[in-house]
Structure formats: C-alpha cells, structure tokens
C-alpha cells in the first residue's frame, strides 16, 4: 500500500486545463523530485496537494485512507485539518516579517496546539495554566527545529536581517513544526543567490536521512539526481515520465523529456 496516492488529479483555470489527470503514488520516507519546464503545472500540483487550489477532479489518499475527494464538498475547517497532512515550502519563503525566526515557528505551533487542546472552552484560570504549559513545550520544540536547520543562533533575528538561505531554512523548520506527513518544496532554491543554494540543499538532504517523505519541485538537476528515490518529469499537465533518477536522467524514454534535457544542457 502506497503512503501517498493521488488518483486522476485535474485542475483547470478557466479554459486552461493545467493538470490533466495526474496519477501518482509514493512510499513513506521516499523523496520524489518533480522537474519540467515552467508552465508545466508543477506549482499547481503542489498547491492542489496543500489545498491552496481546489482540484476539479481527483482523489488523494494517505496511508490507504481517503483524505480528499474533489467530488465531495468540505467545510473550511475540514480543509484546514486536511491541509496539515502536507507542508509547503515556498520559493520565496513567505516568512512573517514582524516575527523573529523563532516566533515564525512558535506561533503557528501554538495556535494549532491551543486548538487541539480546546483551550478556549476552559475557564479562564485553567486556560491560562494550560496555555502556559503548551507554550513551554512548544518553545522547546521550536528551538529544536531551529537547531536542526543550524539556525539556533539566529532565533531572535527578524527575517529582514537574515540571508535568503537562512530565511528558507527557517521556512523549512516552520513547515516541519506541524509534523506534516508529506513535505512539499516548490523550487526552494530558485529565489536564492547561487552561493546560498548549498545550505538549503544540505538541509533537505539531512531531512531525507531523517526519513521524511518529501516532494521537491526543482531545477537543480544534480541535486534531484542525488537526493531522489524517484524523479517525475512533468510537461503540459501530465506526468510525461517517472522512474528512478538514473533512468529518467540518463535514459529518458519520452521525446518531451529528451527535448527538455537537451535544451537544458544547451543553457549550461
């Protein structure tokens, strides 16, 4: 049984049929890279998984259980809950500028923990005590996450005082805070200066070693080759080719994949 299973995912923007029936599955602890030229629907694919876009058709199963079916309708609260199965790291970080690195991680963590513990329903005094307890726990966890991306020393820095690479590492720690089953990355290094991509890629590699299940949209071909268990080449809203990195990179079968790689090599 696959850990994540996506069946016939479809998404259109008006007349523009962007995802044309994506079928895809991956195992727990696997790392899947998604490559392809721009406009192919990679971002839309990740946004559908995180319910930032509403798929028109298709199902998402986690661990064999139906998480989402486009044919059914869900309340905002249900979508919010389902969303937590996935984490998303954006190309341009989207850290909250008014909070420190530490707070960026801590605040979402606290909000969800308060909600789960239903603190709002408690009488005032109990509520304060429970909140304090949860916050103390979460502070330890948030600091742990920062340490894990090597930024413990920057805990009290605001995003405007961090480099792009540091921001993205904080964003990764923040996405991990809510323990998503699957962590998605949308071109995590594309907004970075070349000399800063290494630190982010190292963090992702380390997450692989920790056994995280990840889907990474990237243009870093050599990184994709080394870190992934499986590579997907996506073009015009379909999965054109999927397989082990050696197969996709060294021996692509589909003409579109071959064309993509040859144009890519020309650029280099």
């Amino acid at each position, binding site marked *: 049984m696959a850990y994540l299973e996506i069946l016939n995912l479809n998404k259109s923007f008006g007349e523009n049929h962007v995802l044309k029936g994506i079928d895809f599955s991956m195992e727990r602890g696997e790392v899947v890279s998604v490559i392809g030229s721009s406009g192919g629907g990679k971002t839309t694919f990740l946004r559908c998984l995180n319910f930032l876009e509403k798929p028109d058709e298709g199902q998402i199963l986690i661990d064999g259980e139906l998480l989402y079916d486009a044919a059914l309708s869900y309340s905002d609260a249900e979508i919010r809950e389902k969303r937590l199965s996935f984490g998303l790291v954006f190309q341009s970080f989207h850290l909250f500028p008014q909070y420190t690195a530490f707070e960026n991680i801590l605040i979402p963590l606290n*909000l969800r923990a308060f909600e789960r513990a239903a603190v709002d329903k408690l009488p005032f005094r109990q509520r304060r005590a429970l909140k304090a307890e949860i916050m103390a726990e979460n502070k330890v966890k948030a600091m742990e996450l920062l340490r894990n991306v090597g930024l413990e020393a920057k805990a009290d820095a605001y995003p405007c005082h961090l480099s792009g690479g540091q921001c993205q590492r904080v964003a990764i720690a923040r*996405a991990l805070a809510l323990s998503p089953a699957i962590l998605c990355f949308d071109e995590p290094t594309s907004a970075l200066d070349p000399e800063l991509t290494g630190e982010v890629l190292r963090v992702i590699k380390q997450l692989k070693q920790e056994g995280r299940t990840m889907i990474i949209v990237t243009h870093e071909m050599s990184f994709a080759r080394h870190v992934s268990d499986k590579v997907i080449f996506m073009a015009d809203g379909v999965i054109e080719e999927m397989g082990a990195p050696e197969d996709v990179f060294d021996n692509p079968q589909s003409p579109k994949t071959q064309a993509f790689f040859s144009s890519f090599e020309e650029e280099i």
Partner: protein
Amino acid sequence: MTFARITMILLEGFGQTCLLFALTLLFALPLGLLVSFCSMSKFKPLQLITKVFVWIIRGTPLMLQLFVVFYVPGMLFNIQLFGSDPQGRFTAALVAFVINYACYFSEIYRGGIEAIPRGQYEAGQVLGMTKTEIFFRVILMQVVKRILAPISNEVITLVKDTSLARVIMVAEIFYLNENLIMSKGIIWPLFYIGVFFLLFVGVLTILFNYLEKKLSYYQI
C-alpha cells in the same frame, strides 16, 4: 478683556475641538475598517454601493457634508435628528466627521491590506491557520506598519478640519474667537489660536514619530 480671560475662553473652545477630534478618531478608525471590508467584499452589490458612497464622501467638501447632516433630515424629511442646542450641533458635527473620516481611513486601510502579498495569507493557510488568525496574527501588524504614515497625515488634517464645525455653530475655538473679534474688536487671539493648533499638531507629530520608531524593528 485680560489675556487670562481670553485664554480661558479660547481654552473652552479648544476643549470642544479636542473632544470632537478624539471622538471622531474613536469612531472613525474602527468604522473605516468596516467600510474597507465592505469595499473589498466579494458580494459585488455591497462593494459597488460602498465604493460609490466613499467616492461621494471623498469627492464633496466636508463643509457641505456638515450642512447636509445638520439641516437635511429636518428640512426635507421633517425628522428632528439633531437639536439646535449646542449638544445637538456637536452631535451633528461628530456624525459628519465620523462618516467623512471613516471613508478616508477605509481607503488607506484598503490600500494597506491590498498591498500585503498573497504569499502571507497562503503561508498562514498551509500552517493551518483560520482566516481570523491569519488576519489578526499575520496581516494586521503589517497593515498597521504600512498605513501609519498616511493615517498620521489624515489625523493631522483632522486637527485642522475640526474648525469647519464652526459652520453649524459648534462652539469650537474659532466660533468663540469670532465672538471676541466681533464684539471686542481684538484681532490678536486669531494668532493665539494658531499657537494652540501648532502645539497640538506638534504633540501628535512626536507621537507618530515615536510609533513609527517602535515599528521599525522589522522591515516588510
């Protein structure tokens, strides 16, 4: 007429000015937020009505609006909304000011809210935040920082606009001063009033500079 006596009279008027100023802010700042939500509403008719209303209020003189609020209900519809006693006049002026300033503030809020990148909302969403949490925890402080400068401009304009309440004979500082000029034939209190306003605006400027400094610990 001693200096002290004139100071007392003007202070009395200035008290009304300050009260009008403070109450206008108290009501117009939150009301403006409500208006800005309406003007950004996904429900098109509400959005349209709000936008037309804001356009009218911002496109006509505040003085005209003061007259309309004070005289029109009684003269056209025979409804006595505001008495012609000082209390009623003050209330009418307050209503006109609140409506006018709420509309100006709403446009500033709207600009501030629309300037926040979508990514901020989406980052909140993928972290499982509710719409309310996203607004209050993520968006609001960024909006406040963005709008502080334009709001402070409006607030300082409001200080001086309060003198318009004179047209419906609210006993604010100019109205009382005019009595002095008319009946006693002395002109210098006019400049004296200027000092009151300068001091008031000076204090506000210092306050806003302080707030701006307070918020400068991060950049958007």
